[in-house]
């Protein structure tokens, strides 16, 4: 009758499950996908970014983050903070306005949508009558001025969004006093810009698209000044004292206009085409910033000579004789200047320029000579080269952490030292419980090390493997070596560079041993590099070996890419991880699995052809094993690489199409045009859908056979010290699982440390297990006598883990895409299993052992399997009894790249890509939860300065902490942390000494 007992009816276990497991998506790391709008509140010192999918994200001091999502999922066109309020208004491309408020709720601030509103004209009026083109949030905080395509300006009350019809500024009213010769029907069409007078809130400047500008008196409802521009207007900017304003134009010119009470229709003071005389592109936005020394900063977007530099995305900064055109690799969405917002201050004194480009955020320090960039603490462009894999390491020892940071800081010398200028709000989240590293491998052959401990994913260090190889692109070929007298004075900024010189350099697998500092990295062309951390620059020869995985298999021809050429002679490496061994697989197929054992000094690697073991101490190949099935021709021809390159070229062409479409669309474009495009798109989608329905999808039902393709594809490699041959002696072993459901086990003989260099490492195949269901093996794990997974190498040696139980009998857990099976050891016989696919029709995509601690008691924790399925569900399965504990939907099942990118941590957290540039962080644990908790206080207007200073100070403290200075914070951190730190110090010294001894 046991089979009638349903699981989960044990109330004690149910309660415990509640204390252990909890699913939360906590924070999005990285750079928002397809940003479309930017806003900034100098008062709150918060920045807001809107996206094309209707998300709105607020950022302040590091750790201060808010996110909201418009229900409509429409593109956010404009963002305007209400002056001196914790409120902002967004304009979407469906012409709706949304009021968002930061409200405090149980100790933290939350972003909430309060109201929504769509401007409606009188019945029968064309849509353009109410199509909003410009928004002015008036300093009175009570009203919004909405400029429209029709030229009328509507006034709505806040927060109710009630239209104050009697205050509408109609284009007719504006035209009344226009000079006859200038007056034509179209001069007052489309409000391009609305700007409030900096000193007199009763006056607003209205700029119409045709170049006509008026100063409007709100009190008397009349025009006080006319400015007759002759060029199509793009934008307006007031000078701080209100005596002048500046207009920028479609032809790449900008014009200064005086405002004085004696001339109601002044002539322009000067009209400049900065990159003339040849035709130039539009200047779409301009700032005029005053300084103490009298020389203003003129900062404008665009204006490049149309013919030769029309394709550049630039922002130019002009200050006296200095002029630089910052050249961005992706389209500039918008930018703002951070300047003194004190009403009493006499000058603007700009300190920083914040530029939102389509693919990255760039902040330029305007106070330091040379205008260096500021290293952003968040919004990192994860995708500056496409992410190809990721690897997470929990609980990094302090010493290693510091060494990585110090290696990284040497790479960052060209960055400004300026503290992060956007520092609003207060981070009240507890300090992260431990130091976590997220390593991302990229298409260009780099590995990036991210601080993933807290809410801000921060780049610590970047490692490039390119130097080991000879590539077509000469690394010394610097695109930025422009002469002094180059014109325009372009300067490339930012890191986004999606174009890879050689796709073979792409990183596929990463393994970092946090105790020894050994790092193994494997790539697309079968290259495996073993590296160690060196705090100094060094020049040395990288030992090179080849592993022929086909061995004596005859008659096969590899049709894929060639292997990478290596550089002869010594290579200079900068401080950080420096490769000392290179193994190249032959044929040079993608490395599909990688394992490193830092204690035995062995590295194992597998491709679609087989796997090999390399002794990186003696620098000797121990063995190779071909896993190919004789009939598997496909694997030999290397279609994997073909598929990949096809995918890549498709992606690139799409990117180009997208780019050209986006850039051809004028900012804020003709509304009719966009809706047409949308309509066409919708129609296309519908047609595609219908087409799909016409051709019904069918699936073949066929059992897997040994003849299927890619059965030899090595999916997983695992080192274990266990009972492979008999139950009395345990020995090192290497396990490999293939796509065809085969598990190979090799018995290893590693010489003792004192003879490690003298005797060779030996390996002998001990077992081969063929799973009858033939599903790909995605995970192998050995459980000790207490059913605890074996510890990582060096973990026990340094007292960080209980030594495994070698008394009781060990068990082998084999996870295939379809089943979980526990076998006894050394005699491999099936003990129990969970048939996931047969029951639920889902397949295992990712699996990891995670440790879950109880949120109620400190002394209880258990190990479970965290599993991601092809349906995007996350399941937690108990060890060793393989009982499903809980299931959470996490990723949409259509989001294949999201599922493929998922990486679990050892403590029940995880990351997956929600776009090429963003990781979603989630938590399965009740105990380890990293999420933003922050407060934005409404600063009192009078004590403005004081509050800002305070938050600035706090920010500085936090920043210093993130750079590794734990001096002040140590006492605050939790018990667990202290424990870890104490251990770390000792451990690292130990490791250090052993390492030095070994050399």
């Amino acid at each position: 009758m046991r089979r009638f007992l349903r699981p989960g009816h044990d109330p004690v276990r149910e309660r415990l499950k509640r204390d252990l497991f909890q699913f939360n998506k906590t924070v999005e790391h990285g750079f928002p996908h397809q940003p479309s709008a930017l806003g900034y509140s100098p008062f709150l010192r918060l920045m807001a970014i809107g996206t094309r999918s209707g998300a709105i994200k607020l950022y302040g001091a590091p750790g201060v983050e808010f996110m909201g999502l418009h229900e409509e999922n429409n593109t956010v066109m404009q963002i305007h903070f209400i002056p001196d309020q914790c409120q902002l208004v967004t304009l979407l491309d469906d012409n709706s306005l949304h009021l968002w408020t930061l409200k405090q709720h149980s100790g933290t601030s939350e972003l909430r949508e309060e109201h929504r509103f769509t401007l409606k004209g009188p019945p029968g009026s064309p849509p353009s009558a109410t199509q909003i083109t410009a928004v002015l949030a008036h300093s009175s905080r009570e009203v919004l001025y909405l400029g429209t395509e029709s030229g009328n300006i509507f006034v709505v009350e806040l927060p109710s969004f009630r239209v104050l019809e009697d205050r509408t500024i109609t284009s007719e009213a504006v035209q009344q006093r226009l000079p006859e010769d200038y007056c034509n029907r179209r001069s007052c069409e489309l409000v391009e810009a609305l700007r409030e007078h900096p000193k007199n809130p009763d006056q607003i400047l209205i700029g119409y698209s045709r170049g006509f500008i008026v100063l409007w008196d709100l009190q008397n409802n009349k025009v006080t000044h006319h400015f007759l521009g002759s060029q199509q207007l793009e934008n307006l900017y007031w000078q701080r004292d209100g005596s002048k304003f500046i207009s920028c134009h479609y032809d790449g010119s900008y014009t200064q206009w005086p405002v004085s009470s004696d001339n109601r229709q002044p002539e322009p003071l000067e009209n400049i085409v900065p990159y003339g005389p040849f035709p130039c592109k539009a200047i779409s936005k301009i700032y005029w910033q005053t300084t103490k020394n009298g020389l203003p900063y003129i900062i404008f977007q665009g204006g490049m000579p149309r013919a030769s530099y029309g394709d550049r995305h630039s922002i130019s900064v002009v200050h006296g004789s200095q002029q630089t055109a910052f050249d961005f690799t992706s389209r500039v969405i918008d930018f703002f200047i951070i300047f003194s917002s004190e009403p009493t201050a006499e000058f603007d004194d700009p300190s920083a320029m914040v530029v939102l480009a389509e693919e990255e955020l760039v902040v330029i320090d305007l106070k330091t000579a040379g205008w260096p960039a500021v290293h952003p603490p968040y919004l990192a462009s994860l995708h500056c080269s496409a992410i190809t894999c990721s690897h997470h390491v929990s609980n990094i020892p302090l010493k290693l952490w510091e060494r990585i940071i110090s290696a990284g800081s040497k790479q960052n010398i060209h960055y400004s030292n300026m503290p992060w200028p956007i520092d609003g709000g207060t981070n009240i989240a507890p300090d992260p419980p431990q130091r976590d590293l997220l390593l991302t491998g990229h298409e260009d052959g780099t590995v990036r090390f991210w601080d993933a401990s807290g809410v801000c994913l921060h780049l610590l260090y970047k490692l490039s493997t390119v130097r080991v190889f000879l590539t077509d692109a000469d690394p010394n070929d610097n695109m930025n070596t422009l002469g002094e007298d180059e014109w325009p004075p372009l300067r490339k900024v930012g890191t986004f560079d999606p174009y890879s010189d050689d796709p073979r350099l792409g990183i596929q697998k990463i393994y970092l041993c946090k105790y020894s500092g050994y790092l193994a990295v494997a790539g697309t062309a079968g290259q495996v590099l073993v590296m160690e951390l060196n705090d100094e620059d060094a020049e040395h020869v990288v030992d090179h070996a080849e592993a022929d995985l086909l061995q004596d298999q005859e008659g096969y021809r590899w049709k894929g890419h060639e292997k990478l050429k290596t550089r002869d002679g010594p290579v200079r490496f900068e401080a950080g991880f420096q490769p000392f061994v290179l193994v190249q697989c032959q044929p040079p197929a993608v490395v599909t699995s990688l394992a490193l054992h830092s204690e035995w000094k062995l590295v194992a690697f597998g491709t679609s052809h087989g796997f090999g073991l390399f002794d990186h101490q003696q620098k000797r190949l121990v063995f190779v094993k071909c896993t190919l099935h004789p009939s598997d021709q496909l694997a030999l021809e290397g279609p994997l690489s073909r598929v990949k390159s096809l995918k890549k070229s498709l992606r690139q062409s799409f990117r180009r199409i997208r780019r050209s479409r986006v850039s051809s669309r004028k900012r804020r474009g003709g509304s009719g045009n966009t809706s047409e495009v949308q309509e066409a798109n919708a129609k296309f989608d519908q047609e595609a859908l219908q087409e799909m329905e016409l051709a019904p999808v069918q699936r073949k039902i066929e059992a897997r056979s040994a003849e299927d393709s890619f059965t030899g594809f090595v999916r997983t490699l695992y080192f274990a010290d266990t009972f492979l041959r008999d139950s009395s002696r345990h020995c090192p072993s290497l396990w490999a699982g293939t796509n065809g459901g085969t598990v190979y086990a090799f018995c290893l003989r590693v010489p003792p440390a004192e003879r490690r260099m003298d005797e060779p490492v030996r390996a002998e195949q001990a077992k081969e297990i063929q799973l009858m269901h033939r599903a790909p093996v995605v995970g192998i794990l050995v459980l000790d006598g207490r059913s605890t997974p074996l510890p990582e190498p060096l973990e026990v040696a340094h007292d960080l883990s209980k030594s495994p139980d070698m008394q009781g009998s060990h068990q082998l857990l084999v996870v295939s895409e379809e089943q979980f099976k526990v076998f006894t050891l050394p005699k491999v016989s099936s003990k129990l299993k969970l048939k996931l696919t047969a029951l639920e029709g889902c397949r295992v995509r990712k699996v990891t052992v995670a440790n879950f601690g109880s949120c109620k008691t400190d002394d209880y924790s258990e190990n479970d399997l965290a599993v991601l399925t092809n349906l995007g569900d996350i399941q937690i399965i108990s060890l060793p009894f393989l009982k499903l504990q809980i299931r959470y939907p996490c990723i949409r099942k259509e989001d294949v790249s999201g599922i493929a990118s998922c990486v679990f941590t050892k403590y029940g957290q995880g990351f997956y890509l929600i776009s090429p540039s963003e990781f979603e962080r989630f938590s399965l644990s009740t105990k380890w939860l990293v999420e933003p908790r922050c407060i934005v206080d409404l600063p009192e207007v009078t004590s403005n300065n004081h509050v800002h200073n305070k938050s600035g100070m706090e920010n500085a403290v936090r920043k210093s902490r993130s750079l590794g200075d734990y001096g002040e914070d140590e006492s605050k951190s939790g018990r667990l942390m202290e424990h870890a730190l104490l251990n770390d110090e000792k451990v690292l010294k130990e490791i250090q000494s052993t390492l030095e001894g070994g050399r």
Partner: protein
Amino acid sequence: QFGAEFRRFSLDRYKPGKFEDFYKLILHIHHIANLEVMIGYADVHGDLLPINNDDNFFKAVSSAHPLLRVFIQKQDEVDYSNFGTNTLSRKKKALVTLRNDNLRRRPHINISMPHDFRPVSSIIDVDILPETHRRVRLYRHGCEKPLGFYIRDGTSVRVTPHGLEKVPGIFISRMVPGGLAESTGLLAVNDEVLEVNGIEVAGKTLDQVTDMMIANSHNLIITVKPANQRNNIIRSSRMSGSSGQSTDSTASHHSLPTSHVLQNFHPDEMESDEEADIVIEGGLEPQHIPKLHSLTSSSLSRINGSSLSHRLQRDLVLNNNSGRESNGNIHKLLSSLKTDPRHSLVIPRGGIEEDGTVITL
């Protein structure tokens, strides 16, 4: 020679004696002493049931009134699946004619008894399923024949409290000619798939159902709602000839329990994908046949003794001295060890049991 011979003879109703004697008597009466035959009888409801031991012989005799209609077939022509299959009530009329006609009997088409015959498919759980549904088990043997069918998405009409409702469903879209599915005749294009190995497919996507079927491909049990609800009838008449057995859908107690049917299999033919993973030891020490897995021991009690030895046989351990020997013999082994329908007697622990789904197999 089994064309249409009829013999009428009498037996002592209350002391029928032993089956052995009866068997000899039959052979003697029919002058076929040198042939192996299968004896069956038509019970009160007209179902053809076997007589092969004392118990069912006694049952047959005691339930006979006034006559016991005995059917004798050559051993290798018997279709075991004729016994107690879900033949439907249409046969009432045939029954009447049969009774009048007394012992008229037609030979069966060339179908043999289970132990010289490898099952391809079977219809199971007739007693617990609605008439409109059919549960089919496909046995895959080696690699010789592909399962050979395709499934697709579609819509099906269901009766709900709110009236008829269209709901998404999974349907068989194509049969591969010569494939296992086609050769059974139990599945057809446009049949709606309701369950896969006891798990309902409602709410699951096409890909999920595909994965479930493939994961169960060694012993696939699919419950379908045949597109043509009259198919059952056609099928049963084809198998048994027009004179065949009568059927009565209400007489569920006549259907043999599936396990009974399965016990008729010779264990040699039965291989399981369960626990059948092959382990090749590369070690040098002599290997022993492993002990039975603890989990199977309980279920083994449900299997007759011969399958126990068989199971031992399956837990095969090869001693390869080198450990790197060519895989050739392994593959041979694999194909010989492929399928075992009997494994369904072993309730997969941690699988079905955990889900709380009850499968009566």
